[in-house]
């Protein structure tokens, strides 16, 4: 075989060893000793395993609901809506989400609904909502669970994730953690 071709194949072989064998094995070894053994962030609750970073569908009214998802929180096929900002179908969809939220939460003033609660996330697996999105669900949940609103507001405050070092990133709430705390009350 041509010497140049042979050399190209040899270089590729070296690269395969370095990057497709050695590096993954080292990282696998490191992951094994990491908390959760490199399987992602896991929380256990009542003997069940949950992935705290992967958003879940909360359609039951007794739970704080997550954001709309274009893939209905199917964690085997992430995806956004990919609808353009002027797409008529998209705008109708947002409007109907607002309407159905108001139906489920009759005490809420429309101007209070934050935009994240009626728009689909990028991955379809967004585990977070904004603080305001949690606050406007308090009345509904308090009524269903027979709890005082004050208790729920406090729960939200405890579960608010502040910006990193007070500077970087938005304030948000992990809905799964909040709902687990809610079940624990």
């Amino acid at each position, binding site marked *: 075989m041509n010497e140049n071709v042979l050399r190209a194949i040899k270089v590729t072989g070296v690269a395969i060893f370095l*990057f497709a064998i050695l590096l993954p094995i080292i990282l696998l070894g490191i992951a094994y000793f990491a908390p959760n053994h490199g399987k992602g962030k896991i929380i256990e609750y009542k003997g069940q395993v949950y992935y705290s970073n992967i958003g*879940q569908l909360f359609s039951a009214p007794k739970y704080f609901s997550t954001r709309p998802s274009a893939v209905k929180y*199917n964690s085997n096929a992430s995806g*956004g809506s990919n609808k353009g900002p002027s797409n008529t179908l998209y705008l109708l969809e947002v409007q109907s989400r607002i309407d159905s939220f108001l139906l489920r939460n009759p005490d809420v003033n429309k101007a209070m609904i934050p935009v994240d609660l009626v728009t689909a996330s*990028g*991955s379809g697996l967004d585990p977070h909502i904004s603080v305001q999105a949690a606050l406007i669900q308090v009345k509904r949940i308090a009524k269903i669970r027979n709890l005082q609103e004050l208790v729920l507001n406090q729960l939200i405050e405890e579960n608010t994730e502040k910006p990193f070092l007070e500077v970087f990133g938005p304030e948000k709430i992990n809905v799964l953690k909040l709902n687990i705390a809610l079940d624990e009350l």
Partner: protein
Amino acid sequence: MVIDIVGSVILFFVVVVLAWPLGKYMNKVYKNEVSGTGLLTKIELKIFRLLKVNPSGNMNIRQYLVAFALINGVWLVYGFCILLIQGQSFLNPAGNPSMEWTLALHSAISFITSTNQQHYSGETGATYFSQIGVFTLLQFVSAAASLSVGVAIIRCLKKNGQQLGNFFVDFIRSCTRILFPLALVVGMLFISRGMPMTFDGPARVISLQGDTTLLATGPVAAMVPIKELGSNGGGYFGTNNAHPFENPDFISYMVHYIIVLLLPMAFVFFIGYFLENRKFSNMIFGVMTLGLLLVTIPIVWQETSGNPLVSQMGIDTRSGNMEGKEMRFGSYYTGFYTGENAVVPAGTITAMLDSYQPLSAIPMLIGMQVDGFFGGLGTGLINIFYYLIVAVFLGCQMIGRTPILLGRKIGLVEMQLATGVAVLQLMVPIVLTAIACFVMNATPGANNTLGWLGNSGPHGFTTIFYEYVSATAGNGSGFEALGDNTVYWNLTTSLAMLTGRFVPIVGVLVIAYLLSKRKYVESSAGVLKTETATFGLFLFMVIILLNALSTLPVFALGPLQEYFQMNH
């Protein structure tokens, strides 16, 4: 908002602080001044002996181009074959199928050209074996290859160097000295943030309210570091950096932001150290930073302002346009990240670009077309280089001097090559868009029979143009409502990726080689100074002018029209 601005400025300066020493280190690596007795050196010498290359040898331009072409050919055949049979191969716990041949060809080309446009979705379209053995591997080698070419070009411009060096030596050193250690460190960081690194198959999970679903996982942390470090962008999952496993929290976001820009910026500092001309690299740094700013600011502004049509519904839209965005990044930082990834062709996304405001598309498209405001690893220099030639030539015409760049006279052939490359880069996406529109027009009931466009009207037009610009620039991001896994799109974007990658690389290598053969002229009063802020500004204007002139009509048909329809 103010706190976000402070945060993002700090983040940018962190990159500068890290890139500076890294540039110094790269200078040592490529001058072969790193300590001679270490373990790495021994391993490298073994590899060089195996390859039968002389570590201090030089290639001429013919040998260099042959080596570069052959190795890319080997990678293409390797990737294509494995993707065709991945369904039958091992490490496939999810039982994903093999790829259809145009998709396999598109994916292989996409990864050897460092474009990483993905017409498959990682969860269901690739096996663990192809994720590691093909996609991760090709991201490493394509990055090392373009880095080596970048180094060879700089070597040609050295005052008394006049040599290309040996492609294989630079390639191996890029792998062992730069990409491998960085990827290892970053991989560890990501694992600590909760990114999966496992060969277990998809997990069956039950949600708190009792729904059962499958959860895709895999050796994610082996792949994600290089997709950012090497300006590649091929994500593990379908939704790339928006996926909570590829980008678990805000700390991982900051790591992503830093490593996307790290090596392209370090390369600029490296130029200064290697040529012993810090003023020149500072000028380039200034131009690139200005470009990054002018691309980022409008996107951030548009996305934080929100969608006017949603605001009209009477809800609280203070957090901006959140469609397709993730709460843990918010609209400000998502826009900030998008600006970075428009100019650096990693082209990774933390949100779905299709749902951005129409005016955000314009800076994204300009950033991608220039592809040299920092740009890719090695390719950023290549793209800025032909603009440099054009700018020096124009500038000298204006003041009546002989065009001299870094002590070498620019001749007719160099000028022809530079303009040829520049014009071709701009024309390819426009022509391909025109053809696609023609095909749509000629097909009766195109929207249903072809199934290309998820959004119609001007937004659909932007979708088509964006796909081709992204393919040509090696960026790889896309408006995902495009039904892109079809024979037509797989083949036409493959063509765009091949020309977009190899024409500038070959063109600029030849230009640099020709320049290196000219006699070195000492700088004097009769030579246009290229190290000044004035020239930097002039270079910037040339870049913007060339791009604006060629694409303004396209902007008018796509994003601008959509904007005016929304805001009439």
